[in-house]
């Protein structure tokens, strides 16, 4: 499957990925509504990029089976089924199942690749993993 690959050394924290994601999915430029989030950290290289690696740990804790894996291997949330319990947020090993206080349902990266196209430094890119 194709996931968003990360090369944090190249990241300039320009925010293009976050803007692209939140603008496309939530029609507003709010990095906290982006399914990829960049954070300044102390540890080298000083940047952490949080984006789902499609591990699927969230699937098994969803009480209403709203989270499933597509044929292409991508983990998606059916927002009509989701009842907003955030169990998936609590269990996510990479902290990339995001939630926002204005939104009922959590959200995550579905490997649409839009952000990678906007990244000026190739700090994020699509990569094939098994």
């Amino acid at each position, binding site marked *: 499957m194709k996931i968003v690959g990360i090369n944090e050394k190249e990241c300039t924290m320009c925010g293009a990925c976050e803007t692209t994601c939140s603008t496309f999915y939530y029609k507003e430029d709010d990095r906290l509504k982006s399914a990829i989030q960049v954070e300044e950290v102390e540890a080298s290289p000083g940047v952490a990029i949080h984006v789902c690696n499609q591990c699927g740990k969230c699937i*098994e*804790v*969803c*009480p*209403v*089976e709203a989270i499933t894996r597509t044929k292409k291997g991508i983990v998606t949330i059916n927002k009509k089924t*989701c*009842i*907003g*319990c*955030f*169990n998936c*947020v*609590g*269990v996510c090993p990479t902290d990339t199942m995001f*939630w926002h*206080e*204005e939104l*009922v*349902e959590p959200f995550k990266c579905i490997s649409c690749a839009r952000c990678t196209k906007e990244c000026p430094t190739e700090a994020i890119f699509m990569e094939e993993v098994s």
Partner: protein
Amino acid sequence: MAKSIEDMRKSRRALASYDYDQAEVEKGYTGKTLYINISDNTIKSKNVTEQMKDIFIGGKGFGLWYLWNGVKPETRWNDPENEIVISSGPIGGITQYPGSGKSLVVTLSPLTNSVMDSNVGGFFGPYLKFSGWDALEIQGKAEKDIVIFIDGDKGKITIEEVDIDPTASHLVSEQLTELLAENEKDKKNISIVSSGSGGENTNIGILNFSFYDLRRKVARMKQAGRGGIGTVFRDKKIAALAVKFSNLSGRSNNPADPSKIAKTGVKITREINKFDDEQFRMRQIGTANLMTPMNDYDLLPVHNFKYGSHPDAAGLSSDTLRDRFTQNMPDGCWVGCALSCCKAVDNFELKTGPFKGEKVLVDGPEYENAAGLGANCGIFDANYVIEANFYCDTYGIDTISTGTIIAFAMECYENGIINKEITGGLELTFGNADAAMELIHQMGQGKGFGKIASQGVRRMKKIFAEEYDADPAFLQDIGMENKGLEYSQYQAKESLAQQGGYAMTNKGPQHDEAWLIFMDMVNNQLPTFEKKAEALHYFPMFRTWFGLQGLCKLPWNDIVPEGNAQTDSPEKIPEHVQNYVDIFNAVTGKKIDQDEMIRQSERVYNFQRIFNLRLGFGTREHDASPYRALGPVTEEEYESRSERYDKQLKEDLGIDPTEMSITDKIKEMRKYREGRYETLMDVVYERRGWTKNGIPKLEKIKELGIDFPEVVDVVKKNL
């Protein structure tokens, strides 16, 4: 039994129906109660007043208020005016914070003849609310078995006769779910309440509340277990209640501040994920995680509460049970509960009874079931406990009372009080799993010695004394009931505070008021009477609060946040207490603090105490404890802890036990312990604002704002 779902569908005959506009949920309340009288098939909507919300909050508070108004002082459990009230509470039904889908059931109990309340999971309470009703109040008695349907999608209530066999609760839940669901996906939108043949044949009938498990594709059940509510249900000839609501969302409860709820919910959900595996393993074993530590600390009830541990306890250890539960399932009894503790055994092949040979899902065993049906009866066999658990649930009998009843019968049998002639051939010795299983079937089916056992320990004592010449004093000592309700499964003997936590209660010895054993006995955090009394004020009030809101107590202290040990009162889990205050405010838009939280409970707690009084109970004499819960009754019991008891005689009483006979040692110990219990009662009553006779003082009820004329009248008559 109906031959098929289609036959059942054809058999439906409406006796009454009622169309309604579903009230919107506003900040946790719909403002409406559904009243149904099944004697004359009245169905009507009642307004929930602001005063009710302010004073009684919801859940058990609403139940008590409706019941108070529905019955007279002389009403007894099987009178038509007795009610069954089901209500969740303002917080009930939120999906973001674990343990927020409980229903509270209130009625007059056949065991205690007084007020009973029980807290139960499953989807019914939240779905009832989202269908437009803060509470369901059922009064009257039907002539023939009926089913009440609440269709929250269409806004329609019907009382119907349906060709359904009400004797096996798991089938009632499955069949009615099947009947109402349009397809497999629709089943999660349905919840059924039913009892079983045990509701007809015993005083310890339960109500099973269903919740559909999407992965297992089965309607599972949680139990409103205590005090014979299922017995009242079947006496009213209710076969089942069914609710359907299809539009559940994260905002169904329409809270004032959803973002605060989300923040608080995410915080604790992350906490559970981080710490549960190293703390209580609720997600792996549920409450049965307590089996090993209870045995290790000599607190597991063994042989009718004689002992606190057993060499064979490994047979029911926490890990043994974990290995029987299917792992990595979202086992919440309400959607979204991250603590996920309602574990189940899948594909269990039954060895006995009417479903022998069938492979079934067993909900549990929880701690109480394993401790009561197993350890307390001297049976350390997981297969037995799982099977007994299944049959208790489907017959609709309380596992806690059943465990305590069988353990009592076994001790009576071993003491020659009853024999094979009386038991109809059952050799009721401790550890005899076959005999215990047979007795459960007899109780559930109303046969043989089961007809005596199913009346409960209090009536068994009377029968054994009157008909079999047993010594009533000995029966009183070893019969583990208070107020007529059987003890739940903790060894309280070495914790004075817990002795009060069991018997100085409103409904009887159920650990949901106070569980102070560890604090008192293991951690020695309550060394004085005053500290014990403070704990016996604070914790019963704090725990009452869950029942007003539609909450489960477990996410309060079965997960502990980082840094808790460094707080001023780690036993209260201050961060979690604040979570609850925050959630209440976020749902209702009110602004309470931790003190007001306790006041909310105090109002309802004292009201319930006065309700007991109104029915002829609720005074000091009713808070007396059987001596088995206070200290060693028998020689073997004293000897099992002789080192501890001898030391106590020497250090606390200044008596040198060296030359004393065991009889004298037991006598001295008893005088001491009973004296301490009486002193504790004085101090606790004082702390609660009650008279020496355990009656809330007039100034207390005034201060709490529950000084309604009829409440004042009851108190005045008893002062």
